[in-house]
């Protein structure tokens, strides 16, 4: 099936894939070929993983991306992931994101409040997408 990862000003990634794993507000969703049409809101600051072959566990993600303000739309073997902001794991500069995260936490005041702030969640998702510890 065809997968595209779109942000407002460009196409971040597109290609063929066997499995897409994302997190909607209702929980994790895995999309295989011939999935029924679905339209879901992605959890704020979550991770989207795209794999070539379904069923294989392990670090076989072809693409890992952090998304913020995103949607998942599946129909006719086309998966579109739309996001106000998104970044591919391979393009993430972990150091810069860490300082973003620190800034977001500092702005929120306490660690507890930072958990709710979209900035902090997006920063954490970016670190996860880059394969860093959070």
């Amino acid at each position, binding site marked *: 099936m065809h997968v595209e990862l779109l942000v407002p000003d460009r196409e971040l990634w597109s290609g063929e894939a066997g499995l897409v794993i994302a997190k909607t507000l209702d929980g994790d*969703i895995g999309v295989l070929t011939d999935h029924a049409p679905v*339209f*879901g*809101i992605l959890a704020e600051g979550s991770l989207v993983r795209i794999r070539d072959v379904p069923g294989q566990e392990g670090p076989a993600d072809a693409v890992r991306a952090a998304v913020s303000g995103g949607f998942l*739309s599946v129909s006719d073997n086309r998966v579109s992931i*739309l996001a106000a902001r998104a970044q591919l794991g391979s393009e993430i500069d972990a150091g810069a994101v860490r300082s973003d995260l620190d800034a977001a936490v500092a702005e929120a005041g306490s660690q507890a409040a930072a958990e709710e702030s979209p900035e902090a969640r997006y920063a954490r998702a970016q670190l996860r997408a880059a394969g860093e510890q959070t």
Partner: protein
Amino acid sequence: MAAQLRAVRARIRAVKSISKITRAQELIAASRIIRAQQRSRAAQPYARELTRAVEAVVSRSSSLDHPLVTEPQSVSRAAVLILTSDGGFAGAFNANVLRETARLRQREQERGVEAVPYVAGRKGIAWHRFRNIEIAQEWSGFSVRPGYRNAEEVSEALLEAYSRPSEDGGVDEIYLVSTEFVSMLTQRPAVRRLLPMEIEERTGEPPTGPLPQYEFEPSPDKVLDALLPQYVASRIFYAMLESAASELASRRRAMKAATDNANDLLNRLTREANNARQAEITQEISEIVGGANALAEASAGSE
């Protein structure tokens, strides 16, 4: 005579530097159009998918009672978002948009609706200030190169006004006046209503086929809540990109015309200068000849 020649030469110098400036502006605009077009092409997939999704949600649930899609009972205030340019030298670009705005304002007035301007671009802001028309909110500094962040800012402000009742300074409708990029030679000012949403009428068979029967997570209402603000921001972003491309195309054309005119003027002035120089020389010669004749006559008389 010598004074006239000096004056013409000074004008030639001035016109020459004008033509250099307008030529440079023309080339800058021309090179930027390509990039502006690429940007608006790159933004197309996102806008297309989002529109498709919104259409699918709205068409699925015709009983939907969402404030962003239902017609208001009565309209007393309407927000008008006007996209103009920051810089001048763009021919009739801003004038066209503002004329369309004035027409819309007139139409709204006849309906008994107060139009509330939201203006992007320094030229539009100046236009409203000069006429003492109150602006609800203004943005500037991004007309040639809009970012998605700019569009989000604008759409947040509009949605905030839309969420308030009109008695409380809110608005019941949102219009967008911007320029559509038809081709390098044609750009058209257009008025569109952003909210309440109108699913755009498509002529003929929709290219994407029938809309899929989506299952919504968590629910159609929730999806629409999250989707519509993004949709509005995306529509505004796309309009900004088109407006940027149109502005550049318009500037290129205006500057080309200005360069051509300056060159014509230069030809004429050069001819005038040559004329003046020749007249000066002729006069000098006739003075010398006249002087020589007078001397010759004087010496002939004395012999």
